[in-house]
């Protein structure tokens, strides 16, 4: 793929980030637990509690 139009520093970064080992990490199992616990389960509990007040 042609990349000559890219800034050399940007090109250096892209080359590095194309290596999965150099990338950041996506959400893992623990992250998903907290996301779902705090984003679905907790709101569901609070909604039920609040409706009964």
């Amino acid at each position: 793929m042609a990349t000559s139009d890219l800034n050399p520093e940007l090109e250096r970064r892209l080359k590095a980030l194309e290596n999965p080992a150099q990338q950041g990490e996506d959400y893992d199992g623990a992250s998903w637990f907290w996301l779902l616990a705090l984003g679905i389960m907790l709101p569901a509990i609070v909604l039920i509690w609040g409706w009964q007040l």
Partner: protein
Amino acid sequence: MTDATHHHLEDLLEADKNAWPLLRSERTWGSWKLGISLVTAAAATWCYIIGEYVGYYLNFDKGFAALFAGSMIGMLIVALAAGPICLRFGVDSIASTKPSFGSRGWIIPAAMQQISIIGWNSLLLIFFAKSTTQLLIALGIVGEGGSRLIVPATVVLACAIVFLVLLKGVSGVDRVAKILVAHVFVGAWMLWIIVTNRWGDLEAAVPAYASTSPLWNYTTGVEIGIVSLLSWWPYIGAMIRMAPSGRKAAVPIMVGMGAPVPMLSLIGIAGILVLKVSDPAEWLRTIGGPTYGIIALLFVAAANLGTAVTGVYAAAIGLRHFPTFERSSWPLLLVLAIGPVALVGLFIPDLFFANFGTFLAFIGLAFAPLCGIQITDYYLLRNRKISIRCIFSNGAHSGYWFTGGFNIAAIGAMIAGCGTYRYLLNPITYESNAPYEYVTASLPAAFVAGLVYFVLTKILVQPRKLGAY
């Protein structure tokens, strides 16, 4: 300092003023640092206005429950939409839209981002200016007519401070966050003051505009929570790209960015229910005299400054994606990001303030479909496979070029999502249609947009081998 270290620092400073992806070695924020920065960004006086709107429909207890639940749901949607790409590649929210909107189509979310951040920053700085004016009038320092000068002068001063703080890039956000996070505790103190002083009134207060349908009121509280947190979409990428992994970011996002809004909004709910005003600088003076008023004003200043700094940083990084601004100086980008805020504060502060509810609904109308599209694209259609090179290759050779740089599936899905929202809840009049009471407006808008995006991609995009799927 060795030459190599010096060059590394220069590259990092350059990168954090660009929209370029950050390398893993440059993404050094741990959970605490990210969490504190997110709290500082989230905890601002918009919480009082959000609380005020909830307090129009719900009492204190139910208002908190609905707003808290809605906020955490909204935060989850944003975290799943922009989060993964920003975390993996160290990019901002706008870059994360290129796989779904295209090498040119990202301009749609970029425009939404700029409008949203300009709107929120205008609100914050006008709020601060109004609080300052009120206090100066109460202290007898200026007369009633003084507000005509003080409001614009304070807005301009605040814009200048934000500009100076951000001259050094994201380090300015971090530095401000460390100092200003203390204001969250002042917020807790203010809540304690009103709850202990006026608990009886608070329990007896009746929401001013409550519908005859308790379910409608409750759902509207949830909806306000969701849309309020959807407005974090423009901000989130610029912050979480400093963290190296989802594990370090997940809890700070949900707790640091999601929870403070409903917690601090309690101040606004309580204020509007008991004292008919959500600005704590005003009602604290009523309860505790000028000293309390000054503390509240300092709180407002600290809270809004931290958030405005984050917002302007995110907006400036977003502008960097435009080819015109690719090589512009950092101070120029800051001026372009702050300038519209100053203009709104100078010329139409009252008009903007009076239409906050419409602005809030616009956020839901625009960002709910956007999030639905991103989630569908990343998890269902791309199976998490993203090309960072395609994100930054803007020509026709880019895998994310689609058709003329635009992905028609994303445009169709945005129209369908916005239409769904508009049908369920009119953003101007707040009139609703079934089944709004049971499902809110934002969640179906996100779902419909995601569904339409999926179908259009399968029918129109993938068969033509577009989009690097």
